């Protein structure tokens, strides 16, 4: 109790400011009383006062002792330290600025990237017991085979046979046209089983979520909005629950809003029960074993492990493959993977983020060693001051504390500035992360991230304070007596400084090599030929049939008529050279991949079933898009329903099916169980033409086999315009949009883009990687160059005497220059060698981020080493020049 009161009084005393006058007056009154007493006893007033003073034991000491009791002395002496440190730092503004700026950059980069890594990779999932969730992925060989989803019968088998999966949620990607205030917009949605939210462990923010009662046919369609969509399209209005919205022409009730959660495998705007798509509840879908349209996310049963789930799933799968041979082509190697949900979500982001985090750590190492070096040099210069302070009574501990306070000030200022830099950086990085991860909206600069920053800067300050060599206790006198100006410091310290510079060079080389590889990747990717003759081609996607209509075929004739009208009107625009209709647009990947068989060309045993993208084109599509015809003919206006079935294939498929023969005139057909449920029929068709390959779906993917169907002859699955113009491409965009909107007012029309833009989309993420890493690399080069120049300049000024003596003994300027250059060159050389060795082994982890270049690409390593060497030598040159300008006469005299 009374101790608490004591502390309170002392804290109050500390903050209460100056009570010194009060204390002084009290002491003074004491002194007067004592003097009066002595006078009363017969002393002369002057003597009495003197005696009283002597008895008092010193007023100043007493006042100090009282002050010590009144406040918090240790805090006050820290205050003194802080003031001292501030003064010292103000006296060397260049040092302070460089150190703070270096730290701010290093800490800023690390804070920004750490906040992304934390948000996307480290934070636990918002799902209840998210670590118990697993994602199932079925895949097969060949393009588009990485993830082929599951069919309902397959999922039923899993439910029966894999008891380690406690709950199996189904998710089928779909899209709907939402009509609000007469304006159509496309909604990406997931059609989910009623147990979806329960299995995933997600809650509603408002309203409710679906349950088993929402499953099957004959129930009312309901919609759960995702949090983002609710905010962006309904302004977070909670009255949306219970409202009816019109999608694909029919009313659906919004029953709730989902909590914020990463949406995987694709981002969607809303989740609905299956009934909205009659197809999803029809027999074809529910009973078709090859009708694979459903993603599977499951929750492990209590006590079950991922391993158990894996072995159960694989035995179920083995049985399925044995029982339904026609559904699993053995040559295509069907397989199922059971992946922890979080790992599946992280998959795409992990490598990029780890690379960025490593790069940021490298920058931190470089900037920390630079600061360390600067501090060491400065301490070298301050040795004398520290020795004097020590001799005047500061203990080593006290000096250490002084340094610590100084370094803390530097580090914390750097951290504060770094945090400001990070705020901007996080915004940029969030855009980057959103390309790879559904969790980008969880990125925050929050307390945990700032705690990371704070820890980083405090650790840094501690390191800086404890590597500085302080005079040892007892050596002060010797140091003062010798009066030596040992500017260069001890041999140990010099070794440390050199090691730091070498580290900087080495780490910089690694960083540069990584940046170089990414830059080359980006260039290689842009250099990949698209297969189109020109990239100045406009393309616009105009879906006139919904997925539901695509299945039933309703509205087909109307759609075809409107596409034709669009083509006619666009063709009439001034500047238009050619217009084609087809789907999807050039360079866009096709969603429809089917098995193909060739007449009189049976597959060898074990040979994978050929699969090809389903694409449609009208007669002018190829010339408008600039896809070269290799053999045969293009489609003609006479290829209509009722006339002979014709197709055009691309070179990849022709090489695959007829490696040694002419493909023209041969017959192929779509095949497979899946045709029973789809609008595509398996009639034989005659190949009339072979066209060139194009980079559909990205610059970095291999060519895919394609079968082109005559647009007029087949049911419409999608459509768009391909326009080649010879001028005014930008104005053309507007004109085209106007025509399309007039003819298809309710269609959700995509943007009119050039194929160059489409191509660029697939290069952009790589370019961002390259730009980010290159900027970190350039930063590193600058810091390292400053490091080398600084250490050499320091070495020169420490050796001015030596240089003076050498020169007066006959060394010429060139010799002196070479001496300094050799010193710098040695550090540079060792650093380069180390960097190359480390880069050679370390950069192998980047393999997955590269395209068209190997992780140990010798050209890249050579180029970055040469670059580093040139910059490094330039950095050496300045101090070397300075050394050669030393005037021996002056230096000798001043010794």
């Amino acid at each position, binding site marked *: 109790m009374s101790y608490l009161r*004591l502390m309170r009084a002392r804290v109050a005393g500390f903050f209460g400011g100056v009570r010194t006058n009060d204390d002084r007056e009290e002491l003074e009154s004491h002194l007067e009383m*004592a003097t009066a007493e002595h006078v009363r006893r017969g002393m002369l007033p002057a003597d009495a006062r003197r005696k009283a003073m002597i008895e*008092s034991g010193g007023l100043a000491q007493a006042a100090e*002792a009282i002050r*010590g009791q009144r406040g918090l002395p240790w805090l006050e002496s820290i205050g003194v330290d802080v003031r001292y440190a501030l003064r010292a730092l103000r006296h060397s503004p260049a040092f302070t600025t460089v150190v703070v700026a270096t730290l701010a950059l290093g800490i800023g980069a690390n804070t920004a990237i750490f906040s992304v890594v934390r948000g996307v990779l480290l934070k636990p999932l918002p799902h209840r017991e998210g670590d118990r969730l697993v994602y199932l992925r079925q895949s097969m060989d060949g393009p588009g085979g990485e993830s082929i989803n599951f069919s309902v019968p397959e999922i039923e088998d899993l439910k029966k046979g894999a008891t380690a999966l406690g709950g199996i949620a189904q998710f089928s990607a779909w899209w709907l046209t939402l009509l609000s205030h007469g304006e159509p917009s496309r909604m990406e949605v997931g059609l989910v089983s009623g147990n979806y939210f329960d299995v995933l462990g997600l809650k509603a923010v408002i309203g409710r979520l679906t349950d088993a009662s929402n499953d099957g046919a004959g129930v009312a369609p309901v919609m759960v909005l995702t949090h983002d969509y609710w905010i962006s399209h309904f302004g977070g209005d909670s009255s949306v629950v219970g409202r009816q919205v019109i999608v694909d022409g029919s009313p659906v009730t919004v029953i709730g809003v989902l909590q914020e959660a990463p949406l995987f495998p694709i981002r969607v705007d809303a989740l609905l029960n299956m009934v909205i798509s009659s197809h999803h509840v029809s027999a074809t879908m529910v009973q078709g074993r090859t009708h694979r349209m459903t993603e599977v996310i499951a929750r492990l049963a209590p006590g079950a492990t991922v391993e158990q789930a894996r072995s159960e799933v694989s035995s179920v799968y083995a049985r399925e493959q044995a029982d339904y041979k026609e559904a699993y082509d053995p040559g295509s190697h069907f397989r199922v993977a059971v992946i922890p949900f979080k790992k599946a979500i992280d998959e795409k982001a992990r490598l990029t983020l780890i690379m960025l985090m490593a790069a940021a750590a490298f920058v931190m190492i470089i900037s920390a060693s630079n600061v360390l070096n600067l501090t060491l040099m400065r301490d070298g210069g301050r040795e004398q001051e520290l020795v004097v302070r020590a001799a005047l009574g500061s203990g080593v501990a006290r000096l250490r504390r002084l340094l610590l306070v100084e370094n803390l000030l530097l580090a914390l200022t750097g951290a504060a500035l770094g945090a400001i830099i990070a705020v901007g950086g996080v915004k940029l990085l969030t855009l980057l992360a959103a390309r790879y991860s559904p969790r980008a909206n969880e990125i925050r600069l929050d307390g945990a991230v700032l705690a990371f920053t704070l820890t980083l800067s405090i650790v840094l300050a501690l390191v800086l304070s404890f590597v500085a060599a302080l005079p040892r206790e007892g050596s002060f006198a010797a140091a003062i007596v010798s009066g030596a100006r040992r500017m260069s410091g001890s041999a140990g310290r010099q070794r440390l400084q050199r090691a730091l510079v070498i580290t900087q060079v080495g780490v910089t080389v690694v960083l540069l090599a990584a940046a170089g590889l990414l830059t080359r990747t980006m260039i290689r990717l842009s250099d990949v030929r698209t297969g189109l003759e020109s990239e100045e081609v406009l393309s616009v996607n105009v879906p006139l049939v919904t997925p539901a209509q695509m299945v039933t075929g309703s509205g087909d004739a109307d759609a075809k008529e409107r596409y034709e009208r669009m083509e006619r009107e666009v063709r009439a625009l001034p500047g238009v050279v050619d217009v084609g209709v087809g789907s999807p647009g050039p360079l866009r990947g096709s969603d429809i991949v089917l098995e193909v068989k060739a007449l009189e060309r049976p597959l060898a045993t074990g040979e994978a079933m050929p699969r090809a993208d389903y694409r449609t084109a009208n007669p002018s599509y190829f010339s408008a898009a600039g896809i070269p015809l290799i053999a045969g003919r293009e489609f003609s206006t006479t290829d209509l329903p009722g006339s002979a079935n014709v197709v055009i294939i691309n070179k990849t498929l022709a090489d695959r099916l007829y490696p040694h023969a002419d493909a023209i005139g041969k017959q192929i057909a779509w095949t497979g169980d899946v045709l029973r449920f789809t609008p595509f029929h398996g009639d034989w068709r005659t190949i009339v033409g072979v066209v060139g390959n194009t980079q559909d779906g990205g610059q970095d993917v291999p060519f895919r086999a394609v079968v082109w169907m005559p647009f007029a002859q087949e049911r419409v699955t999608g459509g768009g315009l391909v326009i080649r113009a010879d001028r005014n491409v930008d104005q053309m965009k507007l004109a085209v949009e106007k025509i399309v909107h007039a003819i298809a007012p309710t269609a959700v029309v995509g943007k009119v883009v050039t194929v160059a833009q489409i191509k660029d989309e697939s290069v952009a993420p790589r370019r961002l990687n390259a730009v980010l890493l290159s900027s970190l690399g350039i930063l590193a080069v600058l810091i390292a160059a400053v490091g080398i120049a600084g250490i050499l300049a320091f070495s020169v000024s420490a050796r001015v005497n030596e240089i003076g003596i050498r020169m007066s003994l006959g060394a010429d300027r060139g010799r002196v220059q070479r001496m300094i250059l050799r010193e710098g060159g040695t550090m540079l050389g060792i650093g380069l060698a180390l960097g190359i060795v480390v880069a050679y082994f370390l950069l192998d982890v980047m393999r997955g981020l590269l395209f068209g270049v190997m992780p140990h690409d010798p050209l890249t390593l050579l180029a970055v080493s040469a670059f580093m060497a040139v910059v490094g030598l330039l950095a050496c040159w300045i101090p070397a020049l300075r050394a050669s300008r030393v005037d021996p006469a002056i230096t000798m005299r001043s010794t």
Partner: protein
Amino acid sequence: MSDRVDVKQGTLALMILGTLDVLGPLHGYGVARRIEETSRNRITLNYGTLYPALLKLEQHGFIKAEWRQSENNRRAKFYSLTAAGRKRLASEAREWNQMAELLAAFLTPRNAAP
């Protein structure tokens, strides 16, 4: 001078409390004189010892201080016991007496033993 005594930690506080208990409100000078007299000048207090001790007692709330006119019209800070201080004095005094008895029993000179 050989009978000069160093003031042991903690004992000064007790002496101050005792003095204020006997004499009532008193300024620092008075407290110092009284302690010196009572100890028959075996204790001398310099300011650096006395005033921090007074301040500490005040911070603990055992004594309170106020500025007043002294007997010969001089402004001085007068200290007086608080209720807490009185209680503290009583408990401390009891402890000291017990301790003194105990120690006396141990330290009785051999030749005085029966």
